[in-house]
């Protein structure tokens, strides 16, 4: 019973959903039943792309790989720029006064609002998608890194200085290490936004990946595929977040010890 407890709510939801479709509480033919979604999803994953009549048959993995690769590339790009920039902004007042206002001004512009600009500049190519994903993930990473750096304990800085540490050593061995928990918070927020951004970008700016499938399926009235896509994205987002969490637990081993002390 205890094991089933977390599954209770999803099962109840599936039951209600099935009931709603069978009892025709929702318009017939528009919302598919869970079973229909499952069947379509299965065919989408395992079906043969050649023999089947459905254009989606057997293309799931390819779509997932397209989207995952874009998320990974955009996310790594955002981390590669966001973490060092956040370190400098948090550490150096001059850099902060130079860069921070621009970041804060651009941050409220929603990632969706950048779409026309991205397409105009980068065209209907991967670069558009990478730009949107990278930009979306960049903000939480840079903001949280900055915040983590500014939170560094003054006493630890003094300790490092009296032991002869120079600026470079302090930045890499003390400030960065001390900011890592915050950086991981930024990374986790960032990868979440990256998945949002990849779907938006693929709906409009490129012709492959889960976002493209979602929009395409919507146009041809395949709500079953739409729902399967939604669930796929949710699953991938969950897995990538878990992977980051696992990584942080390894890297921040000292912190889990602190929590138990």
């Amino acid at each position, binding site marked *: 019973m205890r094991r089933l407890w977390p599954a209770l709510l999803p099962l109840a939801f599936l039951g209600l959903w099935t009931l709603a479709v069978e009892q025709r509480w929702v318009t017939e033919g528009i919302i598919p039943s869970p079973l229909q979604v499952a069947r379509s999803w299965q065919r989408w994953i395992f079906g043969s792309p050649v023999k089947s009549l459905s254009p989606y048959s057997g293309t799931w993995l390819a779509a997932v790989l397209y989207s995952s690769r874009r998320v990974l590339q955009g996310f790594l790009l955002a981390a590669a720029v966001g973490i060092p920039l956040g370190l400098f902004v948090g550490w150096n007042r001059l850099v902060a006064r130079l860069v921070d206002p621009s970041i804060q001004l651009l941050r409220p512009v929603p990632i969706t609002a950048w779409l026309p600009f991205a397409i105009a500049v980068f065209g209907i190519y991967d670069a558009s998608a990478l730009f949107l994903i990278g930009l979306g993930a960049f903000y939480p990473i840079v903001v949280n890194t900055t915040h983590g750096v500014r939170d560094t*304990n003054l*006493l*630890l800085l*003094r*300790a*490092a*200085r*009296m*032991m*002869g*540490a120079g600026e470079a*050593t302090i930045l890499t*061995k*003390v400030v960065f*290490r*001390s900011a*890592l928990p915050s950086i991981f918070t930024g990374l986790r927020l960032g990868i979440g936004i990256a998945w949002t951004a990849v779907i938006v970008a693929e709906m409009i700016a490129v012709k492959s990946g889960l976002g493209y499938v979602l929009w395409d399926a919507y146009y041809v009235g395949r709500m079953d595929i739409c729902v399967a896509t939604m669930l796929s994205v949710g699953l991938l987002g969950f897995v990538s977040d878990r992977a980051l969490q696992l990584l942080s637990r390894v890297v*921040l*081993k*000292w*912190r889990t*010890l*602190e929590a*138990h*002390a």
Partner: protein
Amino acid sequence: MADAGSPRVSDRAVVELADVWKVFDKSGRRVEALQAVSLAVARNEFAAILGPSGCGKSTLLNMVAGFDAPTRGRVLFDGDPVRAPDPRRAVVFQEPALFPWYTVLDNVTFGLRTRGVPVASYRARVEAFIEQVGLRGFESHYPAELSGGMKQRVGIARVLVMEPDVLLMDEPFGSLDAQTRSLMQELLLSVWERHQQTVLFVTHDIEEALLLADSVSVMTARPGRIKKRIAVKLPRPRSLEVTTSPFFNDLKREVLGLIREESVKAAAYGPETG
């Protein structure tokens, strides 16, 4: 400039404060923390600074460490003005201030690694110090896994391995329980008697100051001045038993009298921490 006015100041002084003033600007209000403080610590001397909380004794130590600059006057180390922190002036803080992401061993060797000292040249020394402060077997533990006393011992070991010219200690046992505190005092005595390092030790605990130090400079309440410097002519090696001797009690009575005047004054002014 030779400070000919003070008889204690000699060429052998490692740390020297000459007419040091420190004024803080606390949200527009001028707060005088230190007033005309002059002090010299000779090589191999264990000098204690004793004062009520908020008397500016930590400020004084921070200036010797190079974390803070005097408003007026000069802070000299080996005859040169102190400008920045330096591994020759190592600090033990009241909080252990260990790097929580490093193991005990990595914390202890931080100063050596930072300065690029080759591992082979310090391994034996590090092992010896870890042994001396009773941390053997805990080298790969993280600070979070240690008790308060053990953390503070790491804080002491990490500066001892650097073999600094001066050890600056800012109420290092202030946050420990009474029993651990006594153990740490004995440990410091035994370590100090072996290495005879120059120490500047800040505390508000009279017995601690008298037990450990060769000289005790009693400070006044804010603004902090040095009221009197007392030589502690107790034989070494010392142990906790010395605190029950009649001579120790005479010294204690004298210091107590000085401190009491100051505490009364501090209460009248309204004390501030700092």
